């Protein structure tokens, strides 16, 4: 319940945060909303020596129409996503998925960037961003670079983000207000998904992403290909578990997860 002791520094800007992380090296950890990090610290599963609090970096909290895409500041809270008029018009799917994250209290503090940077395959938003082929804008001491969502998630809680880098912006295509369905299967409303299946129409193609079916958020490539080739929804959905490596935990065996993935993908596609 009581985290190990650490030093606390607050960054007022993205540049300051990058500078502080560079200064403290591996011992430092960025704190955004804290919804993933603080619980780990309370159980002493994470014991950073320095916390760099970026919660006050106000200029990283926005949802903007950037012409051909939407730009979302990494420190935009789930609550701001689920109530965003811009998203309602141009990316309804992200708004709806954000509303499924955690509980109200989590959505009041948690940020999209924190969720992405944590890289938990059981999280809702990373899978949605993978489905949307989002792009992540990352800044470090050497400047700015962009990473495709599909390249960003490398392994369980492992991302392409360098230890000295800060995720600043998430860019998503305009996919319209509708044309999506998210089937989140969990035991309690507040819990992580046992399995989640997201289907979305983006620019004339149907995208399907899976939550908690492997060490990273996944695209159900076989399903998408079958659909693109004109296959029926049931036939395509039957391929949902292909290429997945579902975990085994208290709630589900890998076999059961594979079954759920097929059912949930079919339901999501039928609801499109």
């Amino acid at each position, binding site marked *: *319940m*009581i985290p*190990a*002791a650490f030093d606390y520094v607050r960054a007022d800007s993205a540049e300051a945060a990058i500078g502080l992380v560079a200064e403290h090296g591996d011992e430092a950890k960025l704190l955004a909303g804290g919804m993933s990090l603080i619980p780990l610290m309370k*159980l*002493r599963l994470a014991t950073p020596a320095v916390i760099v609090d970026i919660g006050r970096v106000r200029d990283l909290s926005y949802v903007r129409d950037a012409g051909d895409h939407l730009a979302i500041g990494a420190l935009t809270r789930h609550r701001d996503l689920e109530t965003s008029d811009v998203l309602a018009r141009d990316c309804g799917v992200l708004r709806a998925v954000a509303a499924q994250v955690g509980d109200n209290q989590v959505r009041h503090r948690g940020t999209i960037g924190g969720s992405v940077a944590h890289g938990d395959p059981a999280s809702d938003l990373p899978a949605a961003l993978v489905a949307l082929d989002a792009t992540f804008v990352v800044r470090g001491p050497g400047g700015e670079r962009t990473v495709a969502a599909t390249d960003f998630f490398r392994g369980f809680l492992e991302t392409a983000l360098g230890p000295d880098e800060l995720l600043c912006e998430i860019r998503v295509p305009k996919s319209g207000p509708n044309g999506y369905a998210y089937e989140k*299967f969990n*035991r*309690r*409303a*507040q*819990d992580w998904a*046992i399995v989640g299946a997201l289907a979305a129409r983006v620019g004339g193609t149907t995208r399907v992403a899976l939550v908690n079916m492997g060490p990273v958020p996944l695209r159900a490539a076989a399903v998408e290909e079958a659909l693109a080739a004109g296959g029926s929804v049931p036939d395509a959905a039957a391929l949902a578990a292909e290429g997945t490596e579902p975990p085994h935990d*208290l*709630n*589900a*065996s890998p076999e*059961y997860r594979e*079954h*759920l993935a097929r*059912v*949930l993908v079919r339901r999501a596609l039928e609801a499109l």
Partner: protein
Amino acid sequence: MSILGTRVLRAEDARLLTTGGTFIDGLALPDALHVAFVRSPVAHARIESVDTTAARSRPGVVAVLTAGDVDLPPEPRSHRRVPDAMERPRIARDVVRFVGEVVAVVVAGSRAQAADAAEAVVVEYDPLPAVVDPEAARRDEVLLFPDAGTNVAFSMPSRAGDDFFAGCEVVVEQRIVNQRVAPCPLEVRAAAARWDGRRLTQWACTQNPHGTRAGLAAALGLDTGAVRVVTPDVGGGFGAKHGTYPEEVIVAWLARRLARPVRWVETRGESMCALGHGRAQVQVARLGGTRDGRLLAYRLEVLQDVGAYPSGATLLPYMTRMMASGVYDIPAVDVDVVDVVTNTTPVEAYRGAGRPEATAALERVVDRFAAEIGLDPAEVRRRNLVAPDRFPFTTPTKATYDSGAYEAALDRVLEAAGYPRLRAEQAARRDRGDTRQLGIGLSMYVEITNPGGEPEYGSVEVRADGTAVARTGTSAHGQGHDTAFAMIVSAATGIPFEAIEVRHGDTDDVPRGHGTGGSRSLQAGGSAISGAVDLLIERARERAAELLEANPGDVVIDPGRGVFHVAGTPALARSWAELARPGPLAAEYDFEPPGATFPFGAHLAVVEVDTETGRVELVRHVACDDAGTVLNPLLFDGQVHGGIAQGAAQALFEEFVYDADGNPRTANLADYAFPSAAELPSFERVPMETPTPLNPLGAKGVGEAGTIGATPAVHNAVVDALAHLGVRHVDMPCTPEHVWLALRSAAPPPARAGE
């Protein structure tokens, strides 16, 4: 009009809603040192060494102690037949037997310092093989206590002969795992203690302050008079806070040894492993009868997993045995009980304590019997109920039921639920082959409250200003005793409800008591208050007679006005304040119950089961719980609602899980998933009151009833939803995966004609 039986709002609420009340962790105790425990991370191991050097040098550390430093006797045995070798030391000495067992204790200036130092204690363990499954433990291949020569802690053998089921046309059998659950009161355990050189004051998070006083006094070698236990607000107990835990004894010992006030509060992670667990029985139920639905013989084998040390759970199967045949008139009943130790958290009482296990087994197997003979489960139940003219009714397991109207309860629930319509809806969904199938589950129960038959203390005192104080030996942790007992006093005396203060939980203020457990508080504690009020009124009448210069026999009380007057001359009256002015006006009373009481009821659960994913949703729960005369329907309903939620949660959500090595996998509230509001419906309560003749209030206990009725109703509903698909049983909790597995392994249904 009397306030008895009316919906009086709670006196307790104001402080809880505005300041959050006073729980132990919020007590102001200046200068108190903080205690943290070092606990075993392994299920079974020899302790090779405990190195406290590093911990002692941490900032703020006052003491780091291990078993050798603490001269406390082992816990008292839970039954004289439990082997001596199974005794539990307050701090593990040579061997640890479950994850969470106390190995060392740290005392420091702040909570954070204590936590940091606890982490710095280095313990070397030499692992021993662990046994987690009670059926494996029974084979005695891995022994927790080699000196005992067995893992069996206690047993009550069957008396049945080979011909037990002779005469039965049909015998069904079902193995049922009544899974281990964690009680999870929202407030974890906490304690604080102060030694003034002569006496111990202990703030205890307990259901039973006087029991804690006795437990602490015995452990510390003190007279009970040298121990004062104070129980402030307690955040739920559900049975698990009834005993006295090693940590509480150690906290008391530390206060005396260090001559400093000390305080302790555990984390949820600790609580999940060190607060007693519940249930944990493996049962085999066999039920025999005739093809036309008459039940003739019932045999139940109970294997009780008591955890690493035989504590409160040792005697839970006594209750299971006593209540085995439930509401049915079954001529032959036989129960076989074996208690075994395993490398898991000790099991204690948990809401119902042995009775839910009895009901869950019987009601599940009655459904199987009904399915076997092809009769509606409601009809099988109806044909075997104890008839209303048979009370008091003594069962083959020697329970004497005081009063009951079982068929009426069944009728009311079926009526309220719209049973025929539900069956029609179920049939329609089956015909359509819907993905969401409907399941209808019935259960009926009778349970025993104040099962130990303990007496209870009550007193009432009127102050010179006309207000009153009532004292009770029961102890509340959410039930609303302040409200209930003030109602009893107010109704009889006419003193306004708001002018009555109810006190409990301080053993210096209340001389004796048996606390709250077994749903006993109203029937025992309330009856004691009621008896004290009667005596008080007698004394007041005598005093009024003096003041009015009349014969006591001519003086009457007007409870509507709260005054005494001579019969026929109401205008000339004396108030309680006037009567109390000349000197103390008080009475105390010890209620000796002539016997336990037996509440009963019927529950009907409606679930929807997604046959593709296995997900179950409880959509309706209709409950008729009859616990005799209802004092306050608001409190009554609240107890039932909470009970239903806990009972349904066992059926659908909860299980405390260990891996094969005895590592807990559900030691927090993220993994141990008890439901939130989002997973439950509103409940439908059907009132019914059949008074007991055994106390002046006509009241039985209702605290555990909802839990007892709900689990099998919901469990049966899940199986019922899938019966047409060949499913005969689903292991609890009926999680999506369990349901899916049951569906996969079900025998394919016979093809229907014409298909």
